[in-house]
């Protein structure tokens, strides 16, 4: 089966990746996640370059973006997405440890769709990620040009 992923998770910390996947799996969304280990990989995925050159056509339903990443940081990725005619419709959610005002302000100025601070407490973290995944991947109607679903229909996923 051709690999079709719908959620792009840009996160350099593997532990965070694992915890995020655990949380998303509560809605059985873990398999729909493609992980980019830094900002430049995230852009590679979006522009179908590098190791993502062969991926199917279509935009992810949502990008979960960490701010502090090597090479290209989250704000840079956000700026690129929102500045690109073909990408700017993709919903982008900043998922970060930082609750610094400057980051919030910069993100919203660049047109971020949501800004979520990762809670230290695991249960709260799971809740937050679950809600995010549930909303953007299941509830929200994605813009045209978004990759289709690969798995079960929406109803069974929510159940």
């Amino acid at each position, binding site marked *: 089966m051709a690999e079709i992923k719908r959620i792009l998770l840009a996160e350099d*910390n593997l*532990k*965070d990746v694992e*915890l995020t996947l*655990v949380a998303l799996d509560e809605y059985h969304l873990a398999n729909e996640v493609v992980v980019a280990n830094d900002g430049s990989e995230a852009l590679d995925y979006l522009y179908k370059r590098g190791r993502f050159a062969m991926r199917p056509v279509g935009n992810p339903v949502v990008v979960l973006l960490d*701010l*502090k990443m090597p090479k290209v940081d989250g704000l840079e990725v956000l700026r690129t997405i929102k500045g690109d005619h073909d990408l700017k419709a993709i919903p982008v959610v900043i998922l*970060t*440890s*930082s*609750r*610094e*005002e400057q980051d919030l302000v910069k993100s919203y100025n660049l047109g971020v769709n949501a800004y979520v601070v*990762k*809670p*230290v*407490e*695991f*249960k709260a*973290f799971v809740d937050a990620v679950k809600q995010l995944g549930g909303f953007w991947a299941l509830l929200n109607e994605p813009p045209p040009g978004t990759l289709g679903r690969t798995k079960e229909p929406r109803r069974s996923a929510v159940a």
Partner: protein
Amino acid sequence: MTQPSHPITLTILRPVSVAPVEPDRPTSPVVITPPITANILLVDDDPGSLMAMETLLAGPGRTIVTAESGQDALRHLLQQDFAVILLDVRMPRLGGVETAALIRGRARSLHTPIIFLSAADTMDADVFRGYSVGAVDYLFKPFIPEILKAKVTVFVDLFQIGDRVRQQSEQLGAINQKLDQDITARKRAEEELSKQTAVLKSVLASIGEGVVVADMAGKFVIWNPAAERIVGLVPAGVPQEQWSEDYSVFLPDQVTPYPADQIPLAKAIRGESVDGDVQFLRRPGIPKGIWLSVTGRPLRDESGIQRGGVVIFSDITERKRAEEEIKKSNTQLEAANKELESFSYSVSHDLRAPLRHMNGFADLLQKHAASALDDKGHRYLQTISESAKHMGRLIDDLLLFSRMGRVELRRTPVNLNEIVSDVLRELRQETEGRRIEWKLGTLPEVRGDPAMLRQVFVNLIANAVKYTRPREEARIEVGTLTHLPSAVSREDVPSPHPAPGDPLLRPLQRVMGEEKVRGDDVVVFVRDNGVGFDMQYAHKLFGVFQRLHSAREFEGTGIGLANVQRIIGRHGGRVWAEGKVNEGAAFFFSLPKLAETGKTRGGD
């Protein structure tokens, strides 16, 4: 240094305020008037003789008056003066000699020349008598007309010349008097001038600013002691174009020689004004250099004519150095601030991640290995989770504390009552299931940062809720000492009413005594009947990480009250507390009143 060392001579220009005496002020010129009419009196009892003489002597500039007797002649003399009198000696009744004597007897005609006319046979004795009464000449009848005319003309001329001399001497007298007055005025002006000069000299000698005056040619006229002290040189007679070089003047960049034509004194001489020009002086004698602030003005006399230029300058090296110092420490401060910001950013971002992982994986482990773990194992995992959580709270609180010190204060009018009810709603989770009697007084409106003041109430009220947990019925009171709540139970919570000797007023009075609370400050308190604290440790309450209770008794990070103090401090207020073990605690803070906040306490 190649400065020729002239002795300082303090030449003072004539002060502008003293009017110089004009020596060539136009005075009345000597007026040459046409000769006045000369009256000639002819006295003879013979009308024929009179007529003949009158005909002979008449001419321009002459008025002939005739008299046929001595008495007649005297009458004429009463009315006018005469240049010459021709007097017949032999007349009936009053003879010529007697008439002459009478004429001479009057002061007015004492010097009027009299020519006697007499017959040729006049005795020498008579002639002598005539001369003795004042005759100037004798003419014997019959006259030779030319002689008569010539003699009379001599006297008429004499009269007219005499008159002119008199006029001129009158004019001369007037001129002399004027001159005398002028000399007195000049003397007075000179005295005034020297008095003012002395004052000016002592003023110039005593002021701290350097004063240098040059005339239109650029020659130094004044170079006061301060100028010598500041510049370290005495004036040299170098031309203006060399001032910049000669006195080693540089632009504020400290290396570019000051453009010679831009030197303030040179500009002043050109009629331009210079204000607060900053220049730098450095030469082997002053290797570190000095900074000057120079002001220059053209010098004009009272008639507006420019006479030179003046510069006034002061040594601003110290000020300049202080400014540099401030600039440097500002830069350092900015760098430190930036560093702090990036530090707290890192803390915010990087320190939280491992905690999240500890917590997350401990939780996962608990789920994953639930059956494999015994009670101890579960408890260990629990401890790991809780520790991570606590660390997370510490980081959050510290970051908040740091932010409260860094962020800009946004002052607006703040309704403290709204904040309190808002905070109570927020704390509902903690107060649920508790029996708490709230006494909320009316709080005044103040001016401050709403978000920060909210944080103050969050911390104080959450503390009150927390430390009253052991009480079956908690009492928490929020109020102000300027608007006192009316009915307050005195059982557990002492009344804030200012009763004499009320122990709860002591801290307030103490603080007021130290003038930390001004009479018109607003004082707000949060009081509870909780576990209280020992006043012995009151000073530790507001320190970071300082706690008077163990985490086992009461959870907490020890940052809340430090934050309260920081916020109130930034608002220009004070914080203090009063408590008693097992009886309760009261926390007070003061804030400047609405009307004056922001005006009297400007910055943050």
